[in-house]
């Protein structure tokens, strides 16, 4: 019985082009489509405009050193700060370096020469990291630029404390390797959910209310589990390798268990959700609009510490929230299962919750069944 339902489910998917596209085609499509957005990885060179109001030897040497920086590309040398503002407003430059009048004089006197660095807050996420880099590079340039000062006054004392920054896990720190591993599990989650609900709604359109005996239901669930597991294997095994994302940091056993729990929670949630739809197109209509909020709620790009507590708790009802933490933990951070037991238990709780809803909805059609408002 289980085997028959398993095979029947695959037959149903293969004979429905929309479901086939959603469940299998879109994973392949999105695996190439999405990473292309991040193929630039680290923003290589930030376009910077320079305003030199000092016109001295020191300022000229600073400008020429600026153009050699890895983080910045000098796109214009402008006569006034007003011109520079216009360059920022029209997005031709992301930052402006202004060297004030008297810059060289200050340095020769043994004081600090202050350079003003203006970044565009209209693109805060893009510019904050780059600005920090340019700011640090400017200070470092100062050491060379200060030879004149040293000749006059002797070398300055080194600062008392220095800070070395070392990234852990995602060492290349590209946008892609930060965002895409999260997006991956949103893709797997959403395509399973929508594809399964679309099939269930189509069956309900044709045959009326759906009811299965527990063995058939298990067979159906296993078929979707197989698709989800194949997706996880495809992304963590092939796509992360092909796109050269941080991967395989944890053990294969941890990956298998974490992946299985994520897919099981997603399939039970999808079955539970699908039991409410009775129009074929409805799941597509209502569910594709949720991807961006689901991604942010996972807490990968916006930390739970800065999210209201009740929203963090509600977000844990989505399989993607613990799922993304687990998969990033296993694939990038090399975290062990013990270190991630909260997320594992979260997934187990979701499997139990949505599994119960699924069994109640499909195996025990109550007399009041028709009173529930079906979607569509």
């Amino acid at each position: 019985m289980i085997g028959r339902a398993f095979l029947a489910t695959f037959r149903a998917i293969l004979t429905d082009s929309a479901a086939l596209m959603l469940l299998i085609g879109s994973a392949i499509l999105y695996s190439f489509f999405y990473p292309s957005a991040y193929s630039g990885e680290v923003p290589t060179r930030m376009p910077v405009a320079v305003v030199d109001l000092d016109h001295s030897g020191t300022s000229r040497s600073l400008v020429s050193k600026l153009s050699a920086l890895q983080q910045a590309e000098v796109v214009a040398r402008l006569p006034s700060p007003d011109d520079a503002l216009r360059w920022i407003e029209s997005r031709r430059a992301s930052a402006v370096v202004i060297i004030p009048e008297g810059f060289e004089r200050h340095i020769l006197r043994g004081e600090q020469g202050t350079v003003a660095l203006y970044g565009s807050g209209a693109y805060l996420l893009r510019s904050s990291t780059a600005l920090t880099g340019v700011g640090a590079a400017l200070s470092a340039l100062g050491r060379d630029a200060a030879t004149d000062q040293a000749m006059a006054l002797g070398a300055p004392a080194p600062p008392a404390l220095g800070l070395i920054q070392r990234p852990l896990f995602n060492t290349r720190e590209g946008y892609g390797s930060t965002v895409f591993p999260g997006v991956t599990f949103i893709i797997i989650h959403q395509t399973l959910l929508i594809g399964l609900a679309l099939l269930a709604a189509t069956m309900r359109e044709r045959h009326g209310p759906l009811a299965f005996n527990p063995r058939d239901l298990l067979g159906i669930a296993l078929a979707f589990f197989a698709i989800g597991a194949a997706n996880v294997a495809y992304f963590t095994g092939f796509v992360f390798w092909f796109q050269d994302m941080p991967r395989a940091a944890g053990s294969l056993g941890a990956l298998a268990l974490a992946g299985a729990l994520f897919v099981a929670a997603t399939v039970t949630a999808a079955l539970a959700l699908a039991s409410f739809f009775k129009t074929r197109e409805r799941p597509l209509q209502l569910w594709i609009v949720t991807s961006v909020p689901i991604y942010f709620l996972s807490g990968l790009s916006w930390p739970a510490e800065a999210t209201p507590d009740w929203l963090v708790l509600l977000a844990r009802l989505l399989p993607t929230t613990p799922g993304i933490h687990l998969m990033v933990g296993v694939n990038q951070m090399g975290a062990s299962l013990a270190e991630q037991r909260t997320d594992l238990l979260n997934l187990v709780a979701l499997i139990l919750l949505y599994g119960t809803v699924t069994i109640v909805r499909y195996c025990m059609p109550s007399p009041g069944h028709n009173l529930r408002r079906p979607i569509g």
Partner: protein
Amino acid sequence: MAEPSGPPRPGAAFREGWHREIRFLQSSFWDRALVGWIPLLLMAVMAIQLSAGVMRDLPIAVVDQDGGATARELVRRLDAAPGLRVVARPPDMHAAERLVRSRDAYAILLIPRDTQRTVLRGQTASLTVFYNASYSTASGAAVREIGAVVQSYAVQLAKDQIATIEPGKVRPPPITAQTTILFNPQGSYELQLVALIHPALLHLIFMVAVASALGRELRDGTIGGWLGGMPPPSAVAAIAGKVAVYIVAFMAWSAVATGYLAEVRGWPVLGSPLMLFAGYAAMYLAYASVALLVTGLTLSMSKTLSMTGLYAGASFAFAGAIFPIESASLFARLWSALLPYTAFAKLLAEQWMMGSPAAASWPHIAIMLIFLVVGAGIGFPRYIAAATTPAVWGCR
């Protein structure tokens, strides 16, 4: 509904298209939800999640191998910084890394042995911060804050030493950069993200709603009775009347979203609000035309909705406002250029945050109107032709 005698004129067809859609929405709970509480709910969830704007009390761990007074004072200063909270003082790096892997801390500050002695000798003691680059938003904020605390403490230490070591020997570094963030001086992620996420959600839901409205007539075979007998100008007006319902509804949501951030949260629109709304209108017209184009080409509601998910669902990644698209592949840059949202995001940055003159944003509106011309130019004839081709109806 009484059939009018003879084909309706465009004005009447527009009104009929409008009323036809209103009547349908009144009868369908879930289609009504898609223009009603669903956009409100999704926008509210994002607004609430990001309402903190800046990240405070991010958990970090300190491994203090030195144990001297300098290290103790540094830890005190770190804990007192608004952005940080020292949650653990593990004895070694091994234990500290475990905290990061279980996400109990975003960063580890290692204060090595002999820090105190190095500082007293007047040399530079190197501290190392290890941060979880997999969670880059939070750890980036934590590292910036740690850097600021360390730097200000170093300045304090230098001042203290002037008294003890020979004066004049201690001088600040010769060049320093003072960084100012223009247009968003508080560095608020709320302004940056919510201002962009709301229109990203709205245009996606809008395109889904329009694709559903257009596709439904084909699926149910009702397009024939509706447009079949009309001359083309009236059919165009009838379709425009149907779409106008959604444009009005989503312009209202745009006003709610803008009002929330500008009035309730206090991030005023520095440029022209009128231009911003003109941008919204142009964006909706562009996405309505793309929905018409795709419906006309696929003649299938489910295929159009899937393509809507691909096209309008990924705007946020490809618009270049959050992630730089300039250095991405040719395909990504091309795809980005083919999204009206890309032009809208530029207009939004100019008119909301930068306070650019209204005229500066006309090019973005012009770009969005190109989508209208191309989409409508191909979409209208295809869709209207389907009204007299019963063979293509009912395609699922």
